[in-house]
């Protein structure tokens, strides 16, 4: 082994095994990925910043450790990249915003630390919608990312850079963050596995906040096993995050292997049929969803109907709560202590100019919305009411899980669309979150898995989502693995790679 193409073909799990077994060195793996990044970045723009020196140093350390006979971590030598929302000590972290351009964190976030401790090699930081606000990676002061499956199309968002990089084999594994679907939707648009864990399963310390009660970090991977491997490294209580869960971390890989081998053995998959009748669901998406249900049935699952009575209110509820929290979380970007400052004559003018120049239009829109809903006179009508609906939505899921083990739906109502096509219609974009938002509001784990492609050109990936009860990641991963074992979508590569090969 050793040819770059072969290296890039291996899953993260396969790479870790090959490096541990001495068939590949971490350094040659890192070099192969760095070359791939160099070759593809001009057309992809998935990376905000590549860290070749750091990557090669970490890879060399893995190789040294192996030679010295030391135990290697579960991700030893696996090249990973982080959405730029994750704080990396000493490496510029912007959360996709001009207001943080040039900010070099003086501390290490939980995610970068846990990955490094597991032996992962950091290739760099990935582009994203500013502060995680967007569905297409077009809300950015930097270059928008392109979908490797159709370069004229969006890769989804807000973890679009993560999705594009993993899909294009520019990293073996990436981390994304998901506030309303920001891991699952781009995974769906890029033929990937994207897992949003249970709220609190993965620390939020060092993940720049968008909406604290909804944000959750998770892996984006080519295969279910890779997502499980990464989750095992990331999950667990963190004393620096009071909302992190102190539940034991199960063996996620075992759940994957069991699902892939043994099937689903009577597991009940709930489907809220009413949601499929809503306006705007693409015919291909619906067809692929039905095909996936059949595949799950082939694996031994039973599909049952469930009701989510408040499903249609999820988007409105989300945009009240998420913008309220965002308006608060983004108050700290005032130009006083770090990040961008627009010099002005008075304190007030400095605040105004800094925030005017530093934030993009979508971020400003959400800050305004959030500030409005938190005003004393509108609080009860908006924030207070949205909190009540949130409780109802969580109750809907709890009741549904009395009748089924997992809930299935499309991940996004439509496949990818051309860059620029929807940028002037934020409301239409907000509605694209309708299938993913519920899991965030209810704090539930959810996964998007490859489910095929559109029937007409351009051939665009389509994803299917599974939602589980709290901490049911093993069941989710098992079902995803059973589905994966019965199709080959995850082995397909985007065109630009085939052209290059």
């Amino acid at each position, binding site marked *: 082994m050793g040819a770059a193409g072969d290296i890039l073909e291996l899953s993260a799990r396969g790479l870790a095994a090959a490096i541990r077994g001495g068939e590949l060195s971490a350094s040659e793996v890192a070099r192969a990925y760095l070359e791939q990044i160099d070759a593809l970045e001009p057309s992809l723009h998935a990376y905000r910043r590549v860290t070749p020196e750091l990557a090669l140093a970490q890879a060399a350390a893995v190789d040294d450790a192996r030679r010295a006979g030391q135990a290697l971590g579960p991700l030893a030598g696996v090249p990973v990249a982080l959405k730029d929302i994750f704080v990396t000590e000493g490496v510029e972290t912007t959360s996709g915003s001009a207001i943080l351009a040039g900010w070099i*964190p003086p501390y290490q976030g939980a995610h970068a630390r846990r990955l490094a401790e597991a032996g992962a090699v950091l290739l760099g930081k990935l582009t994203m919608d500013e502060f995680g606000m967007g569905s297409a990676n077009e809300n950015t002061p930097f270059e928008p990312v392109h979908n490797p499956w159709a370069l004229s199309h969006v890769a989804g968002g807000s973890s679009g850079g993560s999705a594009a990089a993993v899909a294009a084999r520019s990293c073996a594994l990436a981390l994304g963050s998901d506030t309303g679907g920001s891991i699952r939707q781009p995974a769906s648009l890029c033929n990937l596995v994207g897992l949003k864990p249970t709220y609190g399963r993965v620390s939020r310390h060092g993940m720049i906040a968008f909406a604290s009660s909804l944000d959750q970090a998770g892996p984006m991977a080519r295969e279910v096993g890779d997502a499980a491997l990464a989750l095992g490294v990331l999950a667990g209580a963190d004393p620096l995050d009071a909302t992190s869960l102190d539940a034991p971390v199960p063996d996620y890989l075992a759940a994957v292997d069991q699902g892939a081998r043994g099937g689903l053995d009577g597991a009940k998959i709930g489907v809220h049929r009413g949601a499929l009748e809503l306006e705007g669901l693409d015919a291909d998406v619906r067809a692929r969803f039905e095909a996936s249900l059949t595949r799950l049935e082939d694996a031994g699952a039973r599909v049952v109907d469930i009701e989510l009575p408040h499903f249609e209110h999820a988007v409105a509820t989300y945009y009240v709560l998420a913008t309220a929290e965002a308006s608060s979380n983004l108050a700290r970007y005032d130009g*006083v202590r770090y990040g961008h400052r627009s010099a002005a004559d008075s304190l007030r003018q400095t605040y105004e100019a800094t925030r005017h120049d530093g934030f993009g239009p979508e971020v400003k829109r959400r800050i305004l919305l959030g500030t409005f809903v*938190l005003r004393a006179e509108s609080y009860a009508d908006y924030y207070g009411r949205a909190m009540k609906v949130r409780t109802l939505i969580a109750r809907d899921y709890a009741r549904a899980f009395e009748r089924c083990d997992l809930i299935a739906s499309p991940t996004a109502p439509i496949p990818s669309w051309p860059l620029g096509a929807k940028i002037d219609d934020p409301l239409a974009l907000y509605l694209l979150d309708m299938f993913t938002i519920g899991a965030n509001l209810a704090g539930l784990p959810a996964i998007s898995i490859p489910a095929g492609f559109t029937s007409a050109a351009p051939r665009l990936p389509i994803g299917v989502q599974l939602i589980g009860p709290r901490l049911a990641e093993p069941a989710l991963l098992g079902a995803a693995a059973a589905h994966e074992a019965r199709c080959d979508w995850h082995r397909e590569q985007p065109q630009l790679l085939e052209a290059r090969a």
Partner: protein
Amino acid sequence: MPIPDYEVVIGLEVHCQLATATKMFSACACSIGGEPNTRIDAYTLGLPGTLPVPNRVAVDHALRLALVLGCEVQPLSRWARKHYFYPDLPKGYQITQSDQPYATGGAIEIPDHAAADDPLATKRIPLQRIHMEEDAGKSTHTGEHSLVDYNRAGAPLVEIVSLPALRSAAEAADYMRELRTIVRYLGISEANMEEGTLRCDANVSLRAWGAAELGTRCEIKNLNSFKFLEAAIQAEVRRQADLLDRGEPVVQSTMSYDPGRDQTKVMRTKEAAADYRYFPEPDMPPLRIDAAWIAAAQAELPRLPWPRRRELVALGLTAYDAGVLTAERELADYFDAALDDPSRAKALCNWITGELLKLLNASERGVADCPVTPAALAELVGLVEDGTLSGRVAKVVLDEVFRDPSLSPRAIVERDGLRQVSDADAITAMVREVVEQHPEQLAQLLAGKDKVRGFFVGQVMRASQGRANPQLVQRALATVLDELRAARGEVED
């Protein structure tokens, strides 16, 4: 009363900084002062990605305060964000508690000066609530620049909010003093107004006597000494009374006090008040204080000043002495530890509030650092009370123990032979000797110049190196004089 036409109504909002090693929501070192921006960490600066984690010690301190004040401790309370933009507020919001504070109700007892016959009478000032929050940093404005020090940012605070039950500036000051004493008894705060670990805002309103409705209130901000607290309230009462006298309305406002002019002035009116956009803090789950935690805190609560004052008065001390002894918990504890015999309470009190505090003050030491152990002082007082030691010699012995605590009073007495001479015959012999040596003064005394009596007592004390029992000396002198008068009478007769 200077303003007899109106009843004064005052409520206080007191901020008290909790004495903890680290800040309210991060493991950042927390202490008063220090070079600017040396007690900071990523959370304190509000760096992106940092999260608040409640400091259990701070919550425990706050819990103890709520328990001693008789508050209802809420099993579940919530953190909230209060938003405003200012450079010394790193996150653009302060984490506090809003509609669900951890403690409600409770009261603080202040002296009731109206009850003239009972110096221990108290008045209960009921509390509305206590909540926890983090402090902001400190801004300093120079001519051209503003400087921000974040050392204080994130420091743990409790805010104690009273109901409008105080009726004068003096009562407000009493309330602050009692609160300060209580938090110091608990050991949860330095509670020093000058250093800013105890701060006060006062809500002041006036109303006609007998009126049921409260008048419009104004809030005076940042009252940072007892002196200014009283003066500012008095100034605000004058201002509002002037308005009402002229038939003008009081407009609800936030005031500041100018000590130079001894006046309050309007900072902003209610219309200009900020909308803080409170909402539940999503970065932390609700705060839960369970019964076991409450029980553990309850078990370690100290006895409070008022009950102790009453106990001391029951022992025969004056209310004044009881007040002095209970002003600091260490002093009250010292008294308790030294009191081995209740009949000696008064004597012990005199020794503590007199000689011992004098020695401590002279050496600039607190009670906690007193070299004389309570047991040693008890021994000394015992030696005086049983007549072994004269008061004068006892002071010398105390000095010595203060300098060298390894010595016990009894050991010093034995070593230096300081035992008081209470042998009546020996003292009478000394008196006779002194009388014979000073015929001139004797003549004066016998001639009726009674002041000279003191001279003879002094001479005997000197001759005995202070060891003679002064009462026995007096008695012996009287006897000797009687004898002399009798002898002379015989001659004259």
